[in-house]
């Protein structure tokens, strides 16, 4: 295989991982980490210009490019943030050098796995990649070796494995359904062939397969009632990982679900996957919205907010149609950017205040104005207030839903309001009021946070026509 974007996208992280596993000093390794991520982003961006020809294993299309570039970008900003974050962790001795090497290596492995999952043209390969991503994150969640961390990792691990198993069963079923049409062997798993021949497959098998795939990959997406691992994993792992989890891994899993949704949609006999996604989306949204109220740990709270938004996105794609799909894509992008920005912010806050307990963080805008106001902006954005991008997507989603299916819009709006109330309540107690002790300055890197927020703001005010057409095109693809 000649050297093309694929090789770059997969090779750079792999090599970087190998190298990082050996480099001791954290300055150097952090730098290399950033460099590698930057190179990956460059390679990913090149996909806009030149598309390497797809093979039996790898391929990109308009849909996956969106995801790839997004994950490469967030991967880069996260690596920048992680540099300063890890520095602090090393200072206070939470991370030993050995674990640091491990951490950086794993970070690149994760990037590798996610890119692989996104550009895989082969459902088996995609499955392997996502399993790899899961294992990596499990180990990174457990990196602090505290009771809570191990418990969270264990929970994540068990539930994740079951999810993976279900997904595999679904994959096998898809193959079984495809095999009579496409033929035995490798072709029976190649995405492009599957989608081409979908109409001829056995609908009953496809339905069965989608049930397993929805549940299997849905566990990764964090849809209720499969979400249980997500909050703890976010809360107990290092913050950069929380950011990557919320910002990227959930998207990758969602991407898989979307793929198979397209497959079912292409088959006339199969049941429409929309209602299932709508139902799970609504359940997830409302459940997560209520769960936010009682949270005491700030990272866990935002993890639940991620679950809530995943519910919204699943709902959007379940609704289908140009407007709703557009809204779904936009919402996904905006959520990745915003939520990772929030986690960056929260990481610094936790370091400054020395705690993650919401009750002990008060009056941030007084003690740490920059962090406090950025957090306020981030929460406003994530809560769907203009002029941030999420407002745009929620505007499109709610209005179009109400025009098409008024009864579905009611629970949607209900969930949104409940979640808003919860987030606002917490935000006010964290950012305003009499400040709590703990005024330590942190060597925070505001650049990633500001960058993300700026992008989200820009998307809310001015959405470039080029990207608009791109999204509209993809929305049409999704049907």
């Amino acid at each position, binding site marked *: 295989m000649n050297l093309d974007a694929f090789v770059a996208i997969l090779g750079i992280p792999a090599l970087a991982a190998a190298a990082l596993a050996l480099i001791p000093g954290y300055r150097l390794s952090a730098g290399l980490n950033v460099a590698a991520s930057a190179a990956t982003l460059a390679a990913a961006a090149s996909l806009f210009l030149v598309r390497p020809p797809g093979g039996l294993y790898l391929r990109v299309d308009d849909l996956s490019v969106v995801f790839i570039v997004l994950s490469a970008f967030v991967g880069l900003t996260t690596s920048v943030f992680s540099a300063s974050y890890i520095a602090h962790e090393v200072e206070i001795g939470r991370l030993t050098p050995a674990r640091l090497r491990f951490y950086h290596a794993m970070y690149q492995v994760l990037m590798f796995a996610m890119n692989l999952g996104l550009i895989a043209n082969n459902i*088996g*390969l995609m*499955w*392997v990649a996502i*399993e790899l991503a899961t*294992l990596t994150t499990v180990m990174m969640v*457990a990196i602090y070796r505290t*009771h*809570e961390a*191990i*418990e*969270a990792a*264990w*929970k994540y*691990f*068990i539930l994740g*494995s*079951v999810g*993976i*198993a*279900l997904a*595999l*069963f679904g994959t*096998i*079923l898809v*193959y*079984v*359904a495809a*095999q*009579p049409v496409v033929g*035995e*062997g*490798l072709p*029976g*798993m190649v995405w492009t062939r599957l989608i081409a021949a979908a109409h001829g497959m*056995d609908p*009953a*098998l496809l339905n*069965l397969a989608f049930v397993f795939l929805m549940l299997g990959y849905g566990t990764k997406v964090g849809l209720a009632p499969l979400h249980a691992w997500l*909050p*703890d994993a976010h*809360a*107990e792992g290092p913050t950069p990982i929380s950011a990557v989890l919320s910002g990227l891994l959930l998207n990758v899993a969602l991407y898989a679900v979307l793929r198979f949704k397209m497959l079912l949609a292409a088959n006339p006999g199969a049941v429409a996957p929309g209602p299932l996604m709508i139902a799970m989306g609504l359940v997830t949204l409302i459940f997560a919205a209520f769960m936010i109220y009682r*949270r*005491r*740990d700030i990272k*866990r709270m935002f993890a639940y907010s991620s679950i809530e938004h995943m519910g919204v996105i699943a709902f959007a794609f379940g609704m289908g149609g140009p407007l709703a799909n557009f809204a779904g894509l936009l919402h996904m992008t905006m959520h990745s950017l915003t939520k990772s920005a929030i986690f960056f912010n929260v990481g610094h806050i936790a370091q400054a205040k020395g705690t993650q307990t919401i009750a002990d963080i008060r009056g941030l805008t007084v003690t740490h104005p920059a962090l406090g106001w950025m957090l306020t902006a981030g929460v406003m954005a994530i809560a769907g207030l203009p002029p941030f991008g999420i407002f745009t997507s929620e505007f499109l989603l709610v209005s179009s839903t109400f025009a098409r299916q008024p009864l579905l819009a009611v629970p949607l709006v209900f969930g949104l309001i409940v979640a808003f109330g919860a987030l606002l309540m917490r935000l006010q107690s964290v950012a305003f009021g009499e400040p709590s002790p703990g005024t330590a300055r942190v060597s925070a890197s505001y650049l990633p946070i500001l960058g993300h927020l700026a992008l989200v703001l820009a998307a809310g005010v001015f959405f470039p026509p080029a990207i608009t057409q791109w999204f509209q095109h993809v929305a049409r693809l999704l049907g």
Partner: protein
Amino acid sequence: MTGLSFDIAHLLAGSLVLISLLMLYQDRLTALINVFAAQAVALALSVAWQAHAQGAPHLYVTAFLALALKAIIIPVALQRIIKRLGIHRELDQAVGIGPAMLAGVALVGLALVVMLGVAPEADRIAREDLAFALSVVLLGLLMMITRRNAVGLVVGFMSLENGLVLAATGARGMPLVVEISVAFSVLIAFIVIGVFLFRIRERFETVDVAALDRFRGERA
């Protein structure tokens, strides 16, 4: 595929389901592990037979993996854990045997019903195998939630995975089966290691999974 070979494959697959039900029936860890080893053997046989019947030599690797890893290494390892922890006599049913068995039978029924929905012109053996595999998967999942401690959890998960391998091998000419089974073996190895490496005993004085849930983040 001739009738005979089909019947053999059918028999072997069916035996897996049977053994799964037997596992539900066990209430001692040691016995549970032995039965699981038996299932692994049955799986190996069935996979080997598929390799022979489909003329797919690479499946022998899978069969060997199953035999070596799941029929021998892991059971032995688990037995040693249990000895070390001195919980070999421990009763670990969270749900009574009777209800568990009933549920198991119901699940098998469900699996068959679901599979009957599939159009018959699909490869018959694949269809039957899938029915059995689905049953094994569901039973394994059931076992995971009816067993109280980590070992039971591991065993349940492994039998679930047996079902997956059965399905994968049953699907004619399915690519990557070896890779996938390897990947899964890695996964299982991780779980077993996890039981060691997290040194659950030192931390929690037991392998009772509930102990792992004690902290659950916000309780403390």
